């Protein structure tokens, strides 16, 4: 394979239409669609004591339908539990519309369809629901006390419990020269993509065909679910994720109630129907993540070497567990990070609370795991009076230790085995990049090293086709939310087919073009779909060489694809355009233009026998799949200097550096954007954004006025360096990069502030107010 496009900073091919305002997001699709509004529970926990009265809303002019659970054929069906697990002994999922008990503020109760959104919102206010408030369970600590239950049939509020042990922790802890107990707390965060969620659906009774546009991270799964729900063959359901305005995790959750109600209403009413979420709904009805409380005991020697680690943590699952226990499994697996821990025991309890359910948000279980490990190492360094960098150096897994088996369960059903990496070099480079500490008071240094299991299975696929024009089209099932899929996969395909990257057009997330696949999550696009593109493109290249060989009277092994042609190596004049090979790949009776007369029955035949011989298929195209044997493990080291104003507690990030390893880099420009954006999201979650739930389970800051998503003024420039340890698990040698930037930021900022201000940092997020309180509690 050439390396002409792979590795080059190719500018994005998707920019032009987005910059001209010609992007196509779900709410941009009109076609005279009816518009909708939910009636949502104002209580975090309540019983609905009368039947819901929608008569006044139904009678309002402009209202087309109002649905409650009683109106739906699937109103009594629990929504799917997406990822069952033997330890999830008490999994619970919500129903499309609640009719009996509501378990979080924002849970959907009724759905109004009207001629436009304004009328739907007016009508929603007329829907009468009488609630009897029930005791509210908010925060994992309150849930663990189990004084009240979120689900009356789930004792202790415990959805799942899981215990894993590697080595003999009790013996190692007892023998350890030093021991330390620590407690860490991480609060919920919100992904907050700039485009909230939206769904548009049309039912064609003539064609018996359902078409759904959905700002989802998994159109293939949505399609499967709709086909089951409505008893349609999958081939009669098209689901398209068009341009999606950021995902960051919550859009991999399915099925949100609207994803069933909008198609259902479209089928019932015979008109296109659209629902677009508003920002407040996004805060209260879209999944969140990160709430955990960790109780840690660590045993270590006088040199700071880790001997045993025990972590017992609570995970805030929210009101339901549609996504199973993936998050606490990831946390359990990722606490050890890049360090050798010979004896490790981890237990978690996944607890129900009266808040919106949790499912992955960029980082997905890892930022909290990293915070626990890195803060523990800082505590050991402080105890022993050893430099924080040196403590890390003494515990890092070494370059010769790969593959490294951590021995705990991973989210794909395998155990955690790091495939490649070089953690000591990451650390050295980061320290060099960080440089000397700036002068001044209240300046602190923070450091964090992390690993990230990326590119989980089960698989993705791709279809690659050369058109008779010589242009290439390729498609995969997973959708794009800004990661430049259309550019980076064009690079992968262009290399294999020897064409210009501009001649490759990628379609992603459209089941009409590619119906199989899983979705965009877990930093898996480049690994799974990228390698599937590579596999399919190689199959096309092999087919092109075979067809051209017959016509050029050459051995296929002597041919190469370059410059848009198939040609004889060393004799570039002996060859033919790729488009001409595409023509020959499809023997025709009727020439239809585009040079196809060359493939008609009286044209010169290069070989005897039938035009298509046994096993041959028409078209210069192929479908390929890539199914990873296990996750591939990216890694990185972040370091920063910060200054904290001792009076106002304003945070100033003086320098922030990242050294990153995601294996072979497909496009450094795109990678830089992923890292810069991830670090910004990490800074946001470390110091600015906080979900302020009160004890009644009400989110008191459900708007951008009070949930302080950073503007440019809060985010510093970031310096980035790379190393490349190719993954041995996939043909391209790549690892995922989408989530990495966010993972260690809490640990880094926490560590730096602890040094700058001299107060213990054991929780996230921080804020000026929190630092003020800590300073009062810990006067220097």
């Amino acid at each position, binding site marked *: 394979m050439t390396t002409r496009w792979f590795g080059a900073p190719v*500018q*994005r091919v998707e920019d032009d239409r987005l910059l001209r*305002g010609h992007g196509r997001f779900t709410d941009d699709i009109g076609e005279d669609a009816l518009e909708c509004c939910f009636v949502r529970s104002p209580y975090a926990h309540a019983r609905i004591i009368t039947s819901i009265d929608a008569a006044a809303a139904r009678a309002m002019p402009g209202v087309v339908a109002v649905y409650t659970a009683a109106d739906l054929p699937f109103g009594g069906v629990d929504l799917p539990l997406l990822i069952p697990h033997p330890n999830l002994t008490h999994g619970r999922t919500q129903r499309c519309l609640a009719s009996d008990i509501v378990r979080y503020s924002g849970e959907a109760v009724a759905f109004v369809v009207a001629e436009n959104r304004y009328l739907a919102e007016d009508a929603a206010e007329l829907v009468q629901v009488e609630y009897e408030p029930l005791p509210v369970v908010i925060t994992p600590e309150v849930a663990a006390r189990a004084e009240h239950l979120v689900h009356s049939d789930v004792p202790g509020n415990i959805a799942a419990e899981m215990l894993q042990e590697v080595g003999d922790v009790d013996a190692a802890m007892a023998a350890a020269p030093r021991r330390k107990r620590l407690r860490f707390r991480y609060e919920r965060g919100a992904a907050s993509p700039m485009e909230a969620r939206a769904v548009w659906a049309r039912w064609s009774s003539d064609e018996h065909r359902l078409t759904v546009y959905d700002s989802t991270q998994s159109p293939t799964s949505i399609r499967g679910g709709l086909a089951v729900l409505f008893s349609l063959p999958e081939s009669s359901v098209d689901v398209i994720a068009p341009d999606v305005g950021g995902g960051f995790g919550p859009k991999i959750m399915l099925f949100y109630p609207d994803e069933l109600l909008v198609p259902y209403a479209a089928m019932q009413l015979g008109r296109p129907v659209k629902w677009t979420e508003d920002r407040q709904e996004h805060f209260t009805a879209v999944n969140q993540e990160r709430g955990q409380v960790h109780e840690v005991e660590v045993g270590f020697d006088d040199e700071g070497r880790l001997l045993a680690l025990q972590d017992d943590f609570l995970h805030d699952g929210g009101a339901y567990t549609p996504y199973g226990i993936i998050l606490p499994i990831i946390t359990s697996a990722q606490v050890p990070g890049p360090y050798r821990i010979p004896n490790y025991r981890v237990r978690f309890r996944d607890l129900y609370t009266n808040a919106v359910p949790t499912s992955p948000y960029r980082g997905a279980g890892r930022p909290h795991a990293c915070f626990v490990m890195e803060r523990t190492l800082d505590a050991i360094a402080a105890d022993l009076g050893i430099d924080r960098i040196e403590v890390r150096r003494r515990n890092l897994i070494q370059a010769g230790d790969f593959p490294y088996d951590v021995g705990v369960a991973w989210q794909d059903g395998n155990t955690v085995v790091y495939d490649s990496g070089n953690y000591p070099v990451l650390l050295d480079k980061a320290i060099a990049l960080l440089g000397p500490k700036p002068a001044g008071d209240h300046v602190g240094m923070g450091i964090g090293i992390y690993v990230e299991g990326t590119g989980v299975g089960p698989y993705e696929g791709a279809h690659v086709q050369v058109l008779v024009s010589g242009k290439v089209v390729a498609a995969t099932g997973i959708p794009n939310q800004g990661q430049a899929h259309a550019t980076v996969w064009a690079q992968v395909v262009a290399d294999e087919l020897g064409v210009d990257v501009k001649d490759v057009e990628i379609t992603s997330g459209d089941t009409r073009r590619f119906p199989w696949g899983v979705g965009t999550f877990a930093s898996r696009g480049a690994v799974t779909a990228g390698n599937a593109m590579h596999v399919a493109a190689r199959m096309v290249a092999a087919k092109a060489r075979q067809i051209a060989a017959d016509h050029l009277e050459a051995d296929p092994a002597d041919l190469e694809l370059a410059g848009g042609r198939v040609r004889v190596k060393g004799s570039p004049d002996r060859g033919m355009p790729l488009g001409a090979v595409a023509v020959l790949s499809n023997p025709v009776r009727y020439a239809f233009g585009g040079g196809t007369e060359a493939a008609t029955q009286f044209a010169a035949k290069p070989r005897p026998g039938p035009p298509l011989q046994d096993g041959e298929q028409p078209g210069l195209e192929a479908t390929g799949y890539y199914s990873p044997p296990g996750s591939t493990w990216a890694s990185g080291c972040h370091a920063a200097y910060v200054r904290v104003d001792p009076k106002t507690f304003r945070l100033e990030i003086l320098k922030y550096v990242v050294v990153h390893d995601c294996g072979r880099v497909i496009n450094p420009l795109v990678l830089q954007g992923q890292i810069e*954006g991830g670090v910004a999201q990490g800074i946001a979650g470390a110091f600015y954004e906080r979900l302020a739930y009160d004890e009644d389970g009400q989110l008191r800051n459900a708007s951008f006025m009070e949930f302080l998503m950073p503007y440019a*003024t809060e985010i510093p420039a970031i310096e980035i360096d790379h190393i490349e340890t190719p993954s041995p698990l996939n043909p391209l040698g790549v690892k995922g990069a989408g989530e990495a930037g966010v993972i260690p930021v809490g640990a880094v900022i926490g560590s730096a502030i602890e040094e700058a201000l001299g107060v213990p940092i054991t929780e996230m997020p921080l804020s000026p107010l929190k630092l003020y309180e800590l300073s009062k509690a810990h006067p220097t």
Partner: protein
Amino acid sequence: MKVNGVSHPAPTDPRRLLSDHLRHDLGLTGTHVGCEHGVCGCCTVLLDGAPVRSCLMLAVQAERHEVTTIEGLARDQAPLHPVQQAFHECHGLQCGFCTPGFVMSVVGLLAQHPSPSAQEIEEGIAGNLCRCTGYASIRRSVLRAAALSSPLVGKGRDGAE
């Protein structure tokens, strides 16, 4: 009201937001709505040349004014406006949802400050939220846009890019 140089009849619904009117009545869906309460800046358009939040205005308030949306910067297949071109060159966008708002804000910024200082850039884009880029590439895009917009560019004079 004039939108991108074309006169349109007044909207009939008095409570229709300007953002909804542009998007759903006129089909100019390049103007996006990210929060509907004037914080995110995705819906930024130019009103008589100055950036405004179209989600905080009623459509009827725009009567007798000139509105410019992202679609009005570079028509059809015309070359990109210098600000659009700069965002492309500097990878100043990822998902593209906040992008039209940023571009319109930067057009407004450069009209006021053709050679903005770092501080002026910071303030000029501090009314727009982006969740993808971390802003670094947007800052680079603004600097590049200023250079591309400069009358020196393309004339081979010192100071041109």
